[in-house]
């Protein structure tokens, strides 16, 4: 309601202006919708403008730190999500993918270390899974000036997706088809049954226990003489395909005439899963993801003064998986040794036991299926009017965007029984013990998630140039109303504005601010003001440089500073609530209700948004006859009032501390984005590298006043791993006896930890920062050439100074009390004979308190470099096409994640836990334009 008062002047302004008629239509809107496919298109394109928040701005005048990439780059990487197409392409944007599960392979994005707000066409309603053909550009806003108008949601940076618009330049129809295969990048290597059993016995012996496999067992495993009693099932081969298919078909229409423009797009994508299927099922049990998208962007000039546009977007996503779900199959792959059970018993029944109820073959093809149907639509309605009649350069705009989403899961899963052969069949007992039951297929439906988002905005702008002075002003009121699942509606509303001034395009000053609030915060503490300022100087416009240096075409210095916000409080975290707890009920008979109540998370009545003071500066330069472009950026962002839990408090307090605005982190770094392009005759090429160095530091976090400095997180990088410092493996009993006490039951081959405080005992005081503490480096090189009809581009992408901890069920063997799988890595274990070359501690069964601690022993370099993308294309010469009426025919082959260089063995550097692997995808494609 607070907003209402604030909006009165604005609304009055609209009413007044309505009595005045308008003059000429606004022509400032960029007309960049021509998506013609031509030879030069693969060259990384740079337009003259940037898409900024709620406005476009000449690159030359921009004072913020902004990166923008265009459709032609996005189309090259095969990925369901738009984020996947950004990996490695932009400085300051760190994109990672940790799973390749169809329909669940999202890419996480970090802009200068923060999770950005993703917006589509200026609305805070976004989609992860999008086809690139409908995207004109993706803009990453990294500095405070560019994002501050988002008010309390401005801290993380903004990723702005701008969809294509039609243009007046006539109609075009483009059809693109891609068909390809996908394969896992890397998978762990499982031990065969003989090695597994041998190592199992060894692990037992290490703990002084008797072996469970006799020599005849081992022989049977080795020689495969008894596949039922002594199975050796390669489960990956058994249930997974080597490769699976990927396809996508896309159709675009674009065009327009004087008063109306349109862009329409239809897209279909199919990403198949890796599970083998069986013909006897009437339904599909393979994982898979199918996506149907349409978009229609129509823009109509209603009069000379008023333009309206209506953007419609619809999407249907159908995800399929076996009844037990994809995740369960993959986690069971890690908990099923090759010798656990045969696939089937002699009588054809599924094999298994009480310890292995989850026959993997049964889980993939006999557990039914569980499809997920997601539907969403988005409608943006925009009206924009010129108020040049009032004063030239004045305009107003209204926007309403509605986005509704629903996810429905249909459960058609079923349980199955497994059977284990028993020795004793006396008394007519069946020769198999049954575990579990063959259930009836379920058929239930549930809406798991839905949201209804309504974004509305009124904005007003003014632009005027006089005597070299140009002023551009933008003011707006907005409301982002979000109804998510059963939560009460939540809204972000506020006012924001930006004022830009330049003198002869040489000196630029920008001032912007957002004033916004939401119910996330207590009444009367809901609204905050977030201001920012930007300065720019086009040095090459100065007389003393103008036309003096031929090699320097343009040089700009720019800087911005501002305060941004991050509204991340929980659901009414300022109110104290009581919640239900562990059930308990009294009475001599079992009571019908055992509900109990306890205090929920402690309320924080003073909770507020996180804030950041950000500084960003950079140089943009163009040299050597416009052949070299580069930008160098430096930023230094201090995030404060971060919501963190006190860790310095005693647990005698009796409950978890609430999230408090106490933390301070600093992120700083350097970014370089450059491009060199050149041509000779019909040969042209480009090289476009980018490089980012991101340093983070915990400036303040509430932690105990530790006795030892190495225990402190303060001063370390944000998210630094802590653990014991490994000194290798114990080599002998005397080695153990001579070392600090690590607990009972330590044997040679166990990990030896450094006694940091020298007190003779290894305990919590000996944990320090482990793994790299250096700043994270990530980079990409996009390069290519074109010669006549032929074009080739390569994107190389990498990360350095990254640590991964290889731990858990995807790396350690014999977990889950010895029922887990074991891996090739275990063959390098410590034994007295292999003491010098051991790459793994002595083996153990189940949990090992000493060796399974987080320690530097398990830290590995996570540095990697990928050939993220290669595309080779050939466009038929236009002389051939002339008769056909087609303007372009291009055939191409592209490959995503083709090669990966890393020191990790058998593990993908991004997806290394044994989850659904990420894929290399090789596509052949055809693009036709009429």
């Amino acid at each position, binding site marked *: *309601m607070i907003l*209402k008062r604030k*909006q009165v002047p604005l*609304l009055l302004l*609209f009413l007044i202006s*309505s009595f005045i*008629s308008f003059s000429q239509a606004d022509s400032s809107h960029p007309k960049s919708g021509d998506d013609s496919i031509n030879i030069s298109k693969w060259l990384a394109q740079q337009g003259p403008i940037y898409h900024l928040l709620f406005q476009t701005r000449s690159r030359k005048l921009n004072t913020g730190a902004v990166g923008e990439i265009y459709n032609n780059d996005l189309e090259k990487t095969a990925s369901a999500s738009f984020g996947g197409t950004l990996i490695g392409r932009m400085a300051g944007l760190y994109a990672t993918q940790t799973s390749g599960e169809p329909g669940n392979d999202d890419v996480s994005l970090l802009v200068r270390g923060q999770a950005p707000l993703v917006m589509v066409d200026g609305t805070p309603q976004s989609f992860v899974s999008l086809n690139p053909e409908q995207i004109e550009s993706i803009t990453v806003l990294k500095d405070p000036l560019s994002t501050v108008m988002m008010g309390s949601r401005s801290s993380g940076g903004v990723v702005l997706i701008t969809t294509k618009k039609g243009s007046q330049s006539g109609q075009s129809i483009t059809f693109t088809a891609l068909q390809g295969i996908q394969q896992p990048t890397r998978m762990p290597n499982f031990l065969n049954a003989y090695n597994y*059993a041998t190592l*199992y016995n060894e692990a037992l012996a290490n703990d002084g226990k008797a072996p469970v496999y006799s020599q005849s067992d081992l022989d049977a495993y080795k020689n495969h003489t008894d596949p039922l009693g002594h199975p050796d099932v390669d489960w990956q081969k058994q249930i997974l395909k080597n490769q699976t298919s990927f396809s996508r078909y896309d159709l675009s229409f674009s065009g327009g005439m004087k008063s109306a423009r349109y862009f329409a797009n239809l897209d279909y994508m199919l990403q198949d899963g890796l599970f083998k299927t069986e013909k006897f099922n009437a339904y599909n049990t393979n994982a898979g993801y199918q996506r149907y998208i349409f978009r229609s962007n129509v823009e109509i000039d209603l009069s000379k003064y008023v333009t309206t546009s209506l953007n419609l977007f619809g999407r249907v996503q159908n995800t399929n998986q076996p009844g037990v779900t994809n995740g369960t199959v993959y986690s069971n792959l890690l908990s099923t040794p090759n010798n*656990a059970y045969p696939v089937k018993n002699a009588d054809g029944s599924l094999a298994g*036991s*009480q*310890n292995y109820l989850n026959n993997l073959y049964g889980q993939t093809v006999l557990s039914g299926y569980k499809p997920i149907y997601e539907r969403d639509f988005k409608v943006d309605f925009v009206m924009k*009017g010129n108020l040049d009649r009032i004063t030239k350069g004045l305009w107003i705009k*209204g*926007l309403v965007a509605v986005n509704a989403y629903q996810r429905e899961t249909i459960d058609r899963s079923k349980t199955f*029984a497994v059977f*284990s052969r028993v*020795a*004793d069949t006396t*008394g007519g007992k069946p020769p198999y013990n*049954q575990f*579990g039951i063959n259930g009836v297929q379920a058929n239930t439906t549930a809406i798991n998630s839905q949201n209804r988002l*309504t974004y*509305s905005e*009124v904005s007003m702008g003014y632009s005027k140039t006089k005597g070299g002075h140009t002023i551009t002003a933008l003011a707006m*009121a907005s*409301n982002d109303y979000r109804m998510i699942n059963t939560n009460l*509606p939540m*809204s972000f*509303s506020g006012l924001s504005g930006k004022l830009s001034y330049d003198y002869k395009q040489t000196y630029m000053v920008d001032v912007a601010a957002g004033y916004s609030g939401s*119910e996330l915060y207590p009444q009367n503490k*809901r609204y905050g003001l977030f201001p920012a300022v930007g300065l720019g100087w086009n040095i090459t416009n100065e007389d003393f440089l103008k036309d003096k240096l031929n090699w320097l075409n343009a040089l700009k210095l720019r800087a911005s500073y501002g305060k941004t916000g991050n509204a991340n409080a929980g659901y*009414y975290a300022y109110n*104290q*609530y*009581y919640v239900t*707890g562990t059930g*308990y009920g*009294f*009475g001599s008979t*079992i009571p019908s209700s055992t509900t*109990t*109540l*306890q205090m929920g998370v402690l309320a924080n009545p003073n909770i507020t948004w996180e804030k950041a003071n950000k500084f960003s500066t950079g140089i943009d330069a163009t040299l050597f006859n416009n052949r070299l472009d580069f930008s160098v950026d430096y930023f230094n962002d201090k995030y404060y009032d971060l919501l963190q839990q006190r860790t310095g408090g*005693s*647990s*005698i*307090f*009796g*409950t978890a501390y609430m999230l408090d605005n106490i933390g301070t982190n600093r992120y700083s770094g350097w970014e370089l984005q450059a491009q060199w392009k050149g041509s000779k005759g019909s040969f042209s090429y480009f090289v476009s590298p980018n490089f980012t160095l991101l340093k983070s530091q915990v400036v303040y976090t509430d932690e105990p*006043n530790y*006795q030892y400095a190495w*225990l402190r997180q303060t001063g370390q990088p944000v998210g630094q791993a802590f653990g014991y410092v490994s000194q290798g493996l114990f080599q002998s009993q005397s080695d153990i006896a001579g070392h600090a006490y690590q*607990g*009972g039951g330590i044997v040679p081959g166990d990990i030896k930890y450094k006694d940091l405080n020298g007190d003779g005992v290894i305990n*919590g005081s000996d944990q320090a920062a482990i793994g790299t503490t250096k700043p994270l480096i990530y980079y990409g090189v996009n390069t290519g050439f074109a010669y006549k009809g032929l074009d080739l581009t390569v994107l190389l992408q990498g990360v350095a100074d990254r640590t991964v901890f290889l731990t858990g069920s995807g790396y350690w063997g014999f*977990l889950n*009390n010895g029922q887990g799988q074991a891996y090739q890595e275990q063959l390098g274990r410590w034994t007295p004979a292999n003491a010098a070359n051991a790459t793994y501690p002595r083996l153990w069964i189940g*949990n090992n308190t000493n060796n399974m601690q987080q320690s530097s022993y398990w830290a590995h370099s996570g540095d990697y470099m990928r050939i993220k993308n290669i595309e080779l294309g050939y466009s038929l010469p236009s002389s051939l096409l002339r008769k056909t009426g087609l303007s372009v025919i291009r055939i191409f082959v592209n490959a995503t994640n083709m090669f990966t260089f890393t020191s990790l063995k058998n593990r993908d550097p991004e997806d290394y836990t044994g989850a659904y692997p990420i894929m290399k995808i090789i596509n052949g494609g055809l693009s036709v334009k009429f």
Partner: protein
Amino acid sequence: MKHNYLFILMIAAPGFLASCSKQNSGPAEMYTPGRIFDSLDKNGTNAQLYLNNIYADMPKGFNRIDFDMLETATDDAMPSRDGSNIQIFIKSNLTNTNNPDDSWSQNYASIRKINLFLSQVGVVPVPALVPYWKAEARFLRALFYFELLKRYGGVPLIGDTVFQPSDKILYKRNTFDECVTYIVSECDSIKAASRVEPLNATDWGKASRGAVMALKSRVLLYAASPLYNGGVPSGGSPQQQSYAGYPSYDINRWNKAAIAANDLITLNVYSLEPTFNNVFLNRQNKEVILPYLRATTTDLETNNGPIGYSQSAAAFGNTSPTLDLVNAFGMSNGKAITDPTSGYNPNDPYTGRDPRLVNTVLYNNTPWLSRPLQTYEGGLDKPNTNRVQTKTGFYLRKFLGNFTTSTVYTAQNHNFPIFRIAEVMLNYAEALNEYSGPTAAVYNTLINIRKRAGIAAGSDGKYGLSATLTQDQMRQVIRTERRVEMAFEEQRYWDLRRWKMAETALNSSLSGMKIIKNADGTFSYQPVTAGQISFAFPKMYLYPIPNSELNTNTNLIQNFGW
């Protein structure tokens, strides 16, 4: 021109939309503090539900440590699985950052709930119940302090404080003595305000006068026991010593313990159930003083039952009782199997035994689920394949339903007996024997327990007890009786510590029975070593205070040896 007005209105519409959305102040379906402690709630419904929640924090027993029972870290049993977390105790691998039985923060969390309840419950307009509630809450607080005391030694006593987030919590540890005094004085002061037995049927399970007295009995018994009563292992500072027990022995502590136990026994409201199994399988019975109530389940059966059955009788067999425990059971004539006159036959070891044995341990050839149990080598229940199976030739029987002739497991009452009268009787016998020697009262108490167990009275009516036991001999008899009677009720683990026997009893090898089925269907029995257990002396007598607590509260002093 006219339609331009319309456009303007349409453009302005979002502004109205933006301004008219009403802002909420919180979900109305959630419980606010005023709805819990409600001065208008005539029935005190929500306050009762809040108190019920604290009951759910009581000791739960059973397979609570990573699906293993606490007894698998004693000489009574072994975990059947390799590499489960209970091995941290078995291997003395405990550290101040890795303790599977750490309950420091959990108990202080419960104490906070109680202190909050005590500070707020006064507004609830149910004068008939509020005094009971307060007594129950204070009993639970005393119980939680005892849970801390037996694990960590003396801990900070925080009284009725409900801490605010801004409070600096820098409490020092109270001494063992102060903690015992506090718990006992709380028991004494709430005894009169507590519910008097018999409880209403709907109140069954609430902490009554008997529970208060049982807690006092147990606390005083521990306080009088060798580890604490002047027996603190040497080493460490005087402060550390004071957290671990009393500086010198005082025989009067045994007297106090005996009186406290006798007070409860002579109330005559709790008595031994005629049928041993009913104590564990009947939700309400005469013997249990305080249970941890649950709905009926098959979890005990599934976690511990023999592995050779299928479908609805399939089980994991996680607990392997040792031969040492089995050998602690005497014969049905009450004599120990080591007694040459007992009639024990090593070639037929399970015949003619204390009837509690068959109700505590499942052994080879005993009928179970309509077939004889097969724990012989290669038998259905010990197939020697890569499946988890018994390591000792035995499975757990106690607490499991009576499934001798069933074919499937059905849901049973499995309510952990936190206190039952048999324990109080054993407390009494132990304390009295220490204070005044093997008197007739000591004999009679043991006889009552043996009588209920089904042991034959014998011609002398002594139920197999020698009439001429010395105090030392009687001590051994009582300890064995306690081991047998209270097996798997989370007593042995703590008893071995307070008797100061863990350093020997838990530094040993554990035995099992290897059974060969002969061609003629008979069995040969051969005791074998089934595993090892270790106990780091003396530090394992107390748990380490969690490292995080030492970091945050620099006034806390760690226990000696950690």
